[in-house]
C-alpha cells in the first residue's frame, strides 16, 4: 500500500451518524488519525479491518454468540496501544496478534466457566455456538468441539495454521513466540486433534480424504 505523507483528516464530532467514513484511508493515515486523537481514526480502523478481525476470531473460536463484544475489545485494545505499532504497514498482522490475545483470554474464560459450573464440554458448546449459527453444519460444530478440548495455545496455533491457512512464520508472529515453539505447538495440536476427531462421525470422512 502506498504510504505518502498522512493527510490531515477533518474531524467531525457530531452528529454521530456523520462519523461513518466516506473515503478509504491508508493504514498510515488511520494510525496517524488515532495517534492525533481524531475520532475518524477509530471508525476507519473498524470499517476497514472489521471483516478481517471478525474472520480471525471466528476461525480461532468458532461460531460465537459474543463475537460483537470480542471484536470491539480487539479494536479498543488496538486504539489504546497504537503507539506500540512501529510500522503502519504491519497493521493487519498486528491486529491478528491482538485477536490471538483476546481469543486466548476468551478461551481461558470459557474453560474457567466450565470448570466452575462443572458442565460437560459438548453441553457448553451446544448452548453457544450451534444455537447462534444454525447455518453452520455438523462438521464445523464437531471441529470446534474437538478444538475446545485442546490447550488454548495449541488450539490457537492449530486454527491459525490449518483453518486460517497462515504460514508457520505468521503463526509464530501472531502468537508472539519463536518459530520453533510454534512448530512444537502445531505438532502437538495436530496429533491430539486427529486422535480425538476419529471418534466423531461428522469428522471421520474428512479425515479419510475429504467430503463428497
Amino acid at each position, binding site marked *: 500500500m502506498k504510504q505518502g505523507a498522512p493527510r490531515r483528516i477533518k474531524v467531525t464530532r457530531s452528529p*454521530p451518524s456523520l462519523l*461513518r467514513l466516506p473515503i478509504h484511508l491508508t493504514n498510515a493515515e488511520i494510525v496517524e488519525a488515532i495517534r492525533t486523537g481524531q475520532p475518524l481514526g*477509530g471508525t476507519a480502523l473498524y470499517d476497514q479491518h472489521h471483516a478481517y478481525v471478525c*474472520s480471525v476470531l471466528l476461525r480461532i473460536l*468458532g461460531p460465537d454468540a459474543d463475537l460483537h463484544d470480542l471484536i470491539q475489545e480487539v479494536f479498543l485494545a488496538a486504539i489504546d496501544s497504537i503507539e506500540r505499532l512501529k510500522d503502519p504497514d504491519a497493521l493487519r498482522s498486528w491486529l491478528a496478534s491482538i485477536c490471538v490475545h483476546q481469543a486466548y483470554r476468551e478461551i481461558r474464560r470459557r474453560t474457567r466457566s466450565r470448570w466452575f459450573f462443572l458442565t460437560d464440554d459438548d453441553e457448553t458448546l451446544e448452548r453457544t455456538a450451534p444455537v447462534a449459527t444454525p447455518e453452520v453444519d455438523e*462438521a464445523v460444530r464437531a471441529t470446534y468441539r474437538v478444538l475446545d478440548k485442546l490447550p488454548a495455545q495449541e488450539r490457537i496455533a492449530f486454527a491459525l495454521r490449518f483453518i486460517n491457512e497462515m504460514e508457520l512464520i505468521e503463526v509464530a508472529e501472531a502468537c508472539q513466540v519463536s518459530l520453533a515453539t510454534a512448530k512444537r505447538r502445531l505438532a502437538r495440536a495436530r496429533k491430539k486433534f486427529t486422535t480425538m476427531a476419529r471418534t466423531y*462421525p461428522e469428522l471421520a470422512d474428512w479425515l479419510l480424504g475429504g467430503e463428497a
Partner: protein
Amino acid sequence: MTSGGLGPLGKHVAQQLDDVAARNEASEATRRVLAARSAAAKHARASGGGGLFAAPARWRLALLVACTAALGLAFGVWVEGSSSPASPLLSFSVGQPARPGTVGVWERAPADGVLPFVFSDGTRVKFSDGSRGRVVHLGAHGAEVVLESGRAFASVVPARDGAWLVRSGPFLVEVKGTEFEVSWDPARDDFRLRLFEGRVRVSGCSLGAGQTLERGQQLRAACAEPRFAVAALDDAVPALGEAARPLEAQGRPSPAVDSVQERAPRAAPRPPPNAKSSPPAAAAALDNWRELARAGHFERAYQVATDAGYAAELERAGANDALLLGDAARLSGHGGAARTAYQGVRDRFAGDAAAARAAFALGRLTAGTSESLRWFETYLAEQPRGSLAGAALDRLLETSIRLGDKARALAIARRYLAQYPGGPHAEQARELVERSAVDGG
C-alpha cells in the same frame, strides 16, 4: 490447510465461517464507541496508558513489578470511584438537535414527543410523552439516569465493565448491555419494565434485594402495598395480585412469581406483541430477520419475517437464507412455518446440496417419528458422503430403535458400524447386532 487429511476439513470450516463472518455487519454502536475511544486515547497515552499485551517479553518482568507496586494505588483510586486517565468519563448530549448534557439538570420530554439522551459510548435513553428525569452520575463505563415520572426506552451498549443504573421512583434497574422500556407512575404507584434484550436486575420496595429479568420478560411492581409480578412480553400486562413476600437472601422468587413464570418459560422469550407499538430504537433493531436469526434471536427473527410477509420473504430468499428462516421458525416453536421453508427449498432447489440440507432439517423437525426416518434417508441418498451423513445415520439409528422398527434398526446398525465403528452410537449398534445374532442362532 496444508497438512494431509486436515486440508479439506480446514477449508470447509473456513468457508462456512467466512459465510458467517460476511453476514456479521459492522455495528454503528461499536463505530461510535471506537470514535469516542480514538478521541480520548491520545490523552490516555500521554498519561502513560497503553495495552500490556503487546509489550516485548523482556519488559514483562519489569512491568509486572511496576504493576504490583501500582496495585495498591490503583485499588485506592478504584475505591474512590474516580476514573483512571485511560478510562475517560462518558459524556452525553440531550435533545434534537443535540446540545451538551449536564449532570444533575432536570430534563422533560415534549408532551407528545421524545427527548433523547445520547452517551459517548453509544448508549441511548429516550424519554417520551412528558416524562421527566435527569442524569445524576457519569462514570467511565456507565451512568445513572433518574426517571422521575413517565416512560423511557434504554438501549445500553454492551461492555464487559458496563455499569448502568436507571432509577425509576423507588426502583433501581441495574444494567450491563440491554434494551428495555421502563415506566413509573408515582400517582398510581405503578412500575413497569419490558425487557427486549439482555438481562437486568431490578431492586427496591416489593422486590427487596432484587429480581433478575431475562429478555422477553416484563415486570410490574408497586411500592405502597408491596406487590409484583413477572410475565412474558406478549402476555397481557400482569395484574398485581396479593402482597408479595419478601425475597429470600438467595434471591429466590416468591411463590406468587413462580406461578406467573410458569406461564412465561424463560427458554422461549418472546418479542413485544406489536412491533409497531415498540419504541423506535427497538423497532430499528428489528428490521432484519437475517441478522436476528444469525444472532440467535429466533423468535424475533420469525416475527420480523412474518410482519414483512413470511411467504414473500421465503420466495425472495436464496437457499441458505430460506434454510436460515426455517431454522428460526423451528427453533422458536413454529413448526408449520419451518416445514414450509424447508419444503420450499426442496422444491425450488431440487438436486442442490441445499435441498439435501432441507431434508436433514425436515428430519430434525419431525424427530422421533417415522417421517423423520424418511427425511434422513433422503439426505443420505442425496449426499451419501455429505458433511451431515454421519449425523443422519446417528439419528436414523436412534429413531428406528425408539420406534421399535427392529429390522430397519438392525440394517442401520450394521451400516453405522461399517462406517463409524467409533461413533457415539457404536456401542448401541454393536449390542443390537450381537443380540440379533444370538436371537437368530
